[in-house]
């Protein structure tokens, strides 16, 4: 059973059209939830860490939120440079701090 499920798989947006990405997780105990951005052929680039339900983090046009079962990454007024694959990963309390990743949401922002 997948621990991390991201939806949608792909998202095409017009520049300025705000939207949200979903990350649902099933773990026995959450130590932390991490959002990364990945450009084609590159390594994941760290964006946010969320540790407890109700927590929110913001950076430029991105805002991440966390509940007990899911996290959302909100993209406000996106620009073409926000085009990337956004990865969600969880760190479980029972695991030795490894990250378990979802399959990602590929966002394309058209000018």
């Amino acid at each position: 059973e997948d621990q991390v499920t991201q939806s949608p798989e792909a998202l095409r947006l017009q520049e300025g059209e705000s939207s949200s990405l979903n990350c649902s997780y099933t773990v026995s105990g959450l130590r932390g939830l991490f959002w990364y951005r990945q450009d084609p052929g590159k390594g994941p680039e760290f964006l946010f860490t969320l540790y407890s339900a109700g927590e929110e983090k913001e950076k430029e046009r991105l805002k991440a939120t966390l509940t007990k079962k899911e996290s959302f990454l909100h993209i406000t007024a996106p620009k073409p440079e926000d085009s990337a694959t956004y990865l969600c990963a969880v760190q479980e309390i029972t695991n030795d701090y490894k990250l378990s990743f979802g399959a990602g949401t590929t966002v394309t922002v058209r000018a």
Partner: protein
Amino acid sequence: EPEVTQTPSHQVTQMGQEVILRCVPISNHLYFYWYRQILGQKVEFLVSFYNNEISEKSEIFDDQFSVERPDGSNFTLKIRSTKLEDSAMYFCASTRDRANEQFFGPGTRLTVL
């Protein structure tokens, strides 16, 4: 800004050959990881390393794989006898505090022919 570096960026090898992928983690980090990503698939954990020993390894990390920190800066992943299915992007990551975010390198694309 400090960053994780990896060499080579692309490695092509014949099936059955040994390869060594190299990483230089961020200098004051203590915990080191290898992940891989087969084309079009999820990023998968391979192994974690702390205090000169393996902390955890996945089912993927079988006897054909080994890791080493030969000096104070390098962290290597060796595959003894490569298989076609080892073709993937291999990412090194490091962190100072294992409960915090891991910082990833740019990856090595391994192609096994």
